[in-house]
Each structure stands twice: as C-alpha cells, then as structure tokens.
C-alpha cells in the first residue's frame, strides 16, 4: 500500500516504512511549531499520533497555524481538530488520539509514546515535559523560536532544536534550561506572554525536528550517534550545532539519574550522613 506515494523515500532503508508506521509519536503543542510537525509527520507516513493542545484557533494564529483557515477561527475550532484534519487528509487510516487540554491534565497517554515532539511555550513548561519524558525513557525533540529587541538594533530572531535523549545530556546539562532563565520567567509569573511568532522559522525548526525523528527511527544516515542541540539564527538564516556543545564534557546526564525512572516512589532515608 502507498508504494507509489512513498517510492521516493526508499533511500531511508528497506524497512523504513514499518519503522515509521510502528512508532507512536506524541505532539505536545499544536501551534505554530507543532502544526508544522504534524503536517510533515503525516507526509512522511507516520501512522500513530497522540496530540495535546487546549487552545482553539484564533485570528492571531492564522499567520502561522498550518492547516487552519478563517472558518476555523469563526467556529473556534480546537487546534487538535485542525491537526487531526491535516493528518487524516494525508493518511485516512492514521490513528489519532486527541486531547483538548494541556498534557499535564491527561498525562497517561503521553507515557505510551515512542517519541515526543515538544512545541510548548516557556522554559518551565519545557522542564516539566522533559521531566516526564526522562522518567519514562522517551526521546523528546523540543523546538522553539523567539524574537527580541535590543535597543535601536534590528530585532534578533533565534530558536532551537534539541533532542533530549534519555541517558544523554538533558536541557539543563546543555545550559538551555537554567535557574536564571527560569527565574526571569518566574518573575512574570510564568507567563511567556504573546511573543512574536512567524511561520517561516517555525517551518525550519519543525522540518529539522522531523528529520531527526526519521533518522532516529530509520538510521538512514548511520551517523546520528550524539546529542543534538541546534541553534537557529533567523537574522543570518543559519541552523547549526550550538557552540556550547564543544564545551560539553559529559555525554551522560547528571540531572536525571536511573533512580528517577518510573512512577515516583518514596526514597528510603538511610541512617548515614549521606542520603542518596
């Protein structure tokens, strides 16, 4: 089935289709970045989706929400339904479980995913999602973009694509998540606010994320063997490994240890000076 449609993807390996179709992908956030990801995953041939977003389409989304139209805004269509329509339009037999809420309000299905795409707002949200992914040994691919002003200079557009692989460096190991940025966000009571968002950087970041996922599953390049932390410079039009990687001494994670996997259970306090 779909031989004609996918015959140009044969370079991905003899059993690429089985590997892609067997995977259960979780999409957390179906806004500017997540909608791109949903579209591309469907084009590639992914079959099993679990998708979360509690928002509906608004007029301010139409500059970047892939698959949305003006009728969706009038009808206050949930972003999950827009994504479902997008995916089903390309794969009628796709299995899509949609959750019209934050993933935190219905987290159990997320734990059953083989990989998670995170397109969430804010650093605290990223920390929470990564904590769950690490606890249940699920690779997480995070994308995000931002535009900020610096005095009279032109705005600076940036973004990231991070593959957080269980056992490997986490976003804190990479310095992307740290107390400073979390504190700054906390000062605003965690509200990431209406940040500038446009369609083209989302497309670049989402495409990279999907490419990473396909390589992870098919191993078609046979060269994906290390942490991925890509830095996007929207002013220069570049996406390249973050400079911090050259200073990364450890390839294992010091923040999420093996003792933290699985459903949380109480740690026994032993009678010694050291509690582990």
């Amino acid at each position, binding site marked *: 089935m779909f031989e004609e449609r996918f015959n140009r993807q044969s370079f991905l390996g003899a059993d690429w289709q089985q590997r892609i179709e067997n995977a259960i992908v979780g999409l957390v956030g179906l806004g500017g970045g997540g909608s791109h990801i949903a579209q591309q995953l469907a084009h590639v041939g992914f079959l099993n989706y679990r998708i979360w977003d509690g928002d509906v389409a608004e007029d301010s989304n139409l500059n970047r929400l892939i698959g949305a139209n003006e009728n969706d805004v009038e009808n206050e269509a949930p972003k999950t339904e827009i994504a479902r329509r997008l995916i089903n339009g390309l794969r009628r037999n796709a299995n899509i479980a949609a959750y019209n809420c934050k993933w935190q309000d219905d987290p*159990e299905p997320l*734990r059953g995913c083989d990989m998670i795409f995170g397109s969430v707002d804010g650093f605290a949200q990223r920390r929470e999602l990564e904590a769950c992914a690490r606890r249940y*040994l699920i690779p997480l691919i995070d994308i995000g973009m931002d535009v900020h002003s610096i005095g009279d200079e032109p705005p600076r557009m940036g973004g990231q694509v991070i593959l957080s692989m269980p056992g490997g460096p986490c976003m804190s190991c990479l310095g992307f998540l740290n107390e400073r940025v979390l504190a700054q966000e906390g000062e605003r009571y965690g509200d990431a606010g209406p940040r500038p968002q446009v369609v083209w950087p989302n497309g670049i970041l989402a495409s990279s994320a999907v490419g990473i996922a396909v390589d992870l599953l098919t191993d078609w390049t046979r060269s994906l063997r290390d942490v991925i932390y890509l830095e996007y410079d929207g002013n220069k039009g570049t996406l390249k490994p973050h400079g911090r990687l050259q200073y990364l001494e450890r390839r294992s994670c010091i923040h999420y240890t093996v003792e933290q996997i699985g459903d949380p259970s109480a740690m026994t306090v032993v009678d010694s000076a050291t509690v582990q």
Partner: protein
Amino acid sequence: MQLRILRALYERINEDLARSHEVAFERVGFVSAKLGNRHSGEPVVLFANHYPVADQNYIDDPSAGARINSDAIREAMQVVLDTGMGLFHVHCHAHRGRPGFSSMDLDETPDVVSSLRVANPNEAHGMLLLSNDECIAHVWMPGSNEPVFDNRITIVGYPLRITM
C-alpha cells in the same frame, strides 16, 4: 505491554553476557526494572541496571547452557530488596533477529521469577532474552500469576529500535 531499555544498557548487557565462562556455555544476569504508568491501561516496564551473576555462582552442568546456584538467586532477591525495583532474568542468543526462549528457559526460569516476586510483589519481574539486535520478554505484573508475552520493546538510543 511496553518495555524500554536504554541502548547503552542493552549493549552493556550484551557485552557482559558475551564473556566466556569456565564451566557454563553461556552467561546470565539480572536487570532491574521499574514499572511506569501502572495505573493506566498501558503500563510500561523501564529497565535500569544490569547485575551479572558472579562467576562462582554457576553450576557445572553440561546439560544446560547455564545453571546458577541458590546464592545467585539469593543475591538477586537482595537486589530487589535493596533497590525496591523489579528484576528480570536475562541471557543472550548471539544471532541477529528475534530470539526465542528455549523449552528449558520456559520450564525453569519462572521459578526464579517466583522468588523475585516474593521479594517485592509490587513491581514487575520477568525474563528477558536478547539477540544481537532485538529482544523479547515475559513479564509478570504485580498481582498476576500469568506472564504477559506479547510485548513491545523499545531500545532507546541511537537508533531508536522498536521490536514487536
């Protein structure tokens, strides 16, 4: 049900089990595991650490690939008590593709698993069999006397490999 093992752990186990032994034809070990998502309809077993059986705990028995003594079982039970995790008996068939438990595995290993379940009835225990690139498992969930056979095992790492 789902089981997940980090590729680094999978390869470490394979490497350890590939070592030769003076009297045994093959090596065995134990892998600790924690249950996740247990209250949902989709629990997942998450493998943590490997505990090789010590050299001196193998019995010289030419009729078996590997036979371990009661000390090995006791030490395994102690791991369960110390870690609060479940434990899976593990060994390896050195070939590519999906491995299969032998009739001896299916006859004898469940008794080992029973001992582990006594040590901690609140976690999943079982038997894990690796090949060079895949693995299968039988899982005894808390409160159930029958193992679950039909499992989906993911080797998490580069690449990500899902075996069903």
